[in-house]
């Protein structure tokens, strides 16, 4: 069985968001990490590999520095890694990204494709289903649990107030939630081996099954009209009082604002 996991390197927004003195986002100081949902997707693939036997290939489209993240994936236990990188692919929206990643995946063998639900930079949750669309595969989004049974997968698909237990024939694509599992750490031996392994690097010209009209900034139907760092509502009052005074303070505020 062949599993392809699509992973993305993202700036770490968890807790570590830093602002410049002028209130704009300090991107340079943020660490680049493997997107959390994708890491859960990789962990799910590795568990399937352990139970059923599988070859796990990770694929990313990104800057050359995404090599670090691919090595982390190899150190966790992925068998192969592919980096798709080319200046002509830059500025892609989800349509162009999914077209490109799908073209890369087409060059590989796959029974199961796993993507994260969403990447914490763009927060779109669109690339997974769109890759499935380009490959004409069944898609199951928001997976909380994945089981492989013969030629099928059985997935717990999360909704707001319920879940569906869904069965799909492979090949298919699943988008993984971070809730799926606790990803393992890299092992020292794994880290050592990971640096000896080859990462396959593909440029735009290696992706033959891809139209120029569907890549990069020019191939993106959505265009950014304006982007700005969010102007945060300033901090209000902050008081340190004893419990009794604190209570009076809150009650007075609720009265002032006509809540009570």
């Amino acid at each position, binding site marked *: 069985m062949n599993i392809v996991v699509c992973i993305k390197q993202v700036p770490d927004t968890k807790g570590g968001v830093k602002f410049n003195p002028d209130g704009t986002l300090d991107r340079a100081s943020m660490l680049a990490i493997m997107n959390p949902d994708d890491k859960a997707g990789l962990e799910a693939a590795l568990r399937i590999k352990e139970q059923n036997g599988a070859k796990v290939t990770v694929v990313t489209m990104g800057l050359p520095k995404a090599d670090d993240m691919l090595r982390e994936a190899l150190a966790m236990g992925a068998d192969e890694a592919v980096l798709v990188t080319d200046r002509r692919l830059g500025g892609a929206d989800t349509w162009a990204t999914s077209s490109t990643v799908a073209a890369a995946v087409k060059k590989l063998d796959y029974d199961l494709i796993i993507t994260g639900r969403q990447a914490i930079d763009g927060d779109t949750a669109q690339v997974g289903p769109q890759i499935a669309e380009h490959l004409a595969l069944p898609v199951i989004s*928001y997976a909380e649990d994945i089981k492989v049974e013969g030629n099928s997968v059985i997935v717990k698909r999360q909704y707001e107030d319920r*879940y569906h237990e869904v069965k799909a024939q492979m090949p298919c694509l699943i988008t993984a939630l971070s809730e799926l599992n606790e990803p393992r750490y890299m092992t020292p031996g794994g880290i050592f081996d990971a640096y000896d392994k080859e990462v396959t690097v593909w440029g735009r010209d290696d992706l033959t099954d891809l139209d120029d009209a569907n890549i990069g900034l020019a191939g993106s139907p959505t265009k950014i009209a304006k982007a700005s760092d969010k102007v945060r509502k300033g901090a209000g009052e*902050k008081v340190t009082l004893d419990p009794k005074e604190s209570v009076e303070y809150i009650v007075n505020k609720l009265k002032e604002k006509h809540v009570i």
Partner: protein
Amino acid sequence: MSLEEYKGVAIFAQQVDNKLSSIAFELIGKAHELAADLGTDVTAVVLGHDIAGLADKLGEYGADKVVLIDNKELETYRTEPYAQALTAYINEYKPEIMLVGATAIGRDLGPTVSARVKTGLTADCTSLEIGDFPLQAREGQEQKHNQLLMTRPAFGGNTIATIACPDNRPQMATVRPGVMQKLPKEAGRKAEVINFNPELTVNNRFVEILNIVKNVTSTVDIMAAKILVSGGRGVGSAENFKLLEDLAEVLGGTVSCSRAVVDSGWKPKDLQVGQTGKTVRPNVYFAIGISGAIQHTAGMEESDIIIAINKDESAPIFDVADYGIVGDLNKIVPALTEALKAELAAKN
């Protein structure tokens, strides 16, 4: 594709168990404004089985037309039959704008359909308006008018981007639930009802639903609450949430929580506020024992009044709170409940 062929504002009117979701009405409300600016009308598209009864309500909340796609395959949401049906609607009726809720259904259906009809999709929008693209005229680039300008947060709520889709139709967006306003109900207002029966082709992409498990734990809707008493890991235990429940009860409010609380198993997921939970905008939001990580504040910072209680004076929640109290929740919250009880009793 001739862009001029595409006319009208359409919304996907999500139903679950043959009950329309609140987002359907929110989308109609916003679609009305957009349609007024464009001089066009609003169509609500309903997919399901035995759904004829849903049309009246959509009319009363402002839909001018209701398109019903009624098919046994659409009874319960599955990506492929829904994508086929909505794609068929778009190809047949050619709306210039297609809005879908950014729900667990919409964020699966939206990307699939947008890729199928080859158009752009802007995710999880919090503001939509009609305007020019580019915003300012630029030499050497045609400025297009009457474009849908879609604004959305990204980077966990740290940046906002306004996005257009100038060269493809429809212009598609998923819209965050709880942000747009519904119109007041106009009893007796009728929409033109159109039954549309595209053929759905069963193929290998149809998945099989083996089982549906509903969360029976809670039925409260934190997005509708006017007062939310929200607790974080600082509350300490599931049992200790009693303090917050008592406070909520005196105020006629509802309890919600941070993700750390859901991860600890103290409260169910549908009470979670934040980036991966729900976006809430109550009149009053109490943040009690919540640190205020960006993923949490992304879901609550639009609340009218934010009152934070936290023992750590450097907790980031104080940066968004209108009123911050540095102190121990275990001492303050029960005393506050008692004080409010006394206040309210004195009033009546």
